[in-house]
């Protein structure tokens, strides 16, 4: 073992000089090479078709479609399903977006889950709370004005509606918790 180690070390050494070069070369040729092919043992990985059925417990195969339909029920949907449409708010409060809303100068599109993009954010370790409306397209400044008027009329905070319009991101942030009022306004508009 020690001899082998010495040889391998010699093989790695960069030598300059006649006699040393010869011994180094000899060491490289004489040192046993690792056969990486020995690591792969194909007989230890057995494919399904090569299995010896007699050694396995007895089983039967079934491709009955009546049974398979129960398996298909367990597989989840890949895409978000399209919701049903309601003329009025659904029992849970979910409203169907109206087609007329597409004609307005601004538009708030639903999320991929068909929900209204209104969120309530509380800044960490702070009392700052904000209502955020996202996915706004079209004339966002006009929407800000309309929303501000609506909130002023309906909420108790008549002169304190602090509203921030972010045109680039298509979002509007309102100070305070006005989620319900904003969603109501959106329902009226048909978003």
């Amino acid at each position, binding site marked *: 073992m020690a001899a082998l180690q010495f040889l391998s070390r010699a093989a790695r050494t960069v030598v300059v000089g006649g006699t040393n070069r010869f011994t180094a070369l000899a060491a490289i040729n004489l040192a046993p090479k690792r056969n990486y092919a020995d690591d792969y043992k194909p007989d230890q990985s057995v494919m399904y078709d090569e299995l010896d059925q007699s050694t396995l417990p007895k089983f039967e195969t079934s491709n009955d479609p009546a049974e398979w339909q129960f398996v298909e029920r367990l597989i989840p949907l*890949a*895409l978000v399903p399209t919701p049903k449409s309601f003329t009025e708010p659904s029992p849970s409060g979910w409203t169907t977006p109206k087609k007329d809303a597409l004609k307005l100068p601004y538009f708030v599109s639903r999320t*991929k889950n068909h929900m209204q993009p209104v969120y309530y954010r509380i800044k960490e370790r702070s009392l700052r709370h904000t209502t955020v409306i996202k996915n706004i397209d079209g004339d966002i400044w006009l929407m800000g004005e309309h929303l501000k008027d609506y909130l002023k009329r309906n909420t108790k905070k008549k002169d304190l509606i602090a509203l921030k319009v972010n045109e680039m991101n298509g979002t509007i942030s309102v100070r305070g918790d006005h989620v319900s009022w904003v969603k109501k306004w959106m329902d009226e508009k048909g978003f």
Partner: protein
Amino acid sequence: MLRLISKKLLATYSPISPCAQCGLVQKLRSLSLDDNLLKADIKGDYKFLDPDNHYQKFRQVWLENLDTTQEKKLGIISLHPEIFATKPRVDIIHQNITWQRLFRYINYACTKVTSEVRGGGRKPWPQKGMGKARHGSIRSVLWRKGGRAHGPRGPKPYFYMLPHHIRVWGLVSAFSTKLAQDDLHIVKSLDIPTDDPEYVTQLVKERNWGPSVLFIDVSDIMPLNLITATDSIKHINCMPGYGLNVHSILKHNTLVLTEDAASWVQGKLLYHLNQIKPPENIK
């Protein structure tokens, strides 16, 4: 969208409806990551496919030809606004390009630390009495030829995975940017009459496409003429749909998609934008 086209145009060209083009249901069956994850009975209209459900208009693009150097308009294609007309998020494009560059980068720089530098085991001179500064080894960090204190240490991988949705938005922003800047063209097919590179350079020059062009088809088996013609030209490349990435889209000045590739790309990206949950291993 179709309402805007004049009757004269309608007489000459036959516009193809976006839903039929997208062919999403058919595409979904073929493109899915794992067929078992997709329910066999995907029925019903998805709202994201319906043009009447969108505030943004579907983008109208000319369907062009490649069989003559001169441009011929063969029809009009509608492109989905969620993919070809979104907010051009240049910061997300930047994130994607940086990620593509860095995630497979390994910095092999490695300096030697005091203990690794050859020599320096012995105390150079006694502690006291020499009138010299006290030292323990000639290879300490303080010394010339000594070790490096806080140097790079060994192969350092810069691997990280950008979140799935950022990578999807990157592609979508890249396509939107290309279309907005008039650098996106849809062609009927990639068949060209000769395999002469001069034909392709002439075509690109005549149509005022950018010097660098990227031709994209769905499969990686492309017409031989185009492959041979573009093989010798370094800045004009062909790529299959699965190779699409933000870096290549932005690297090439012009992007040329076949009709099939446009449908395929839209189908794939719409799937990723509207899926319930991305699989855990690609998050």
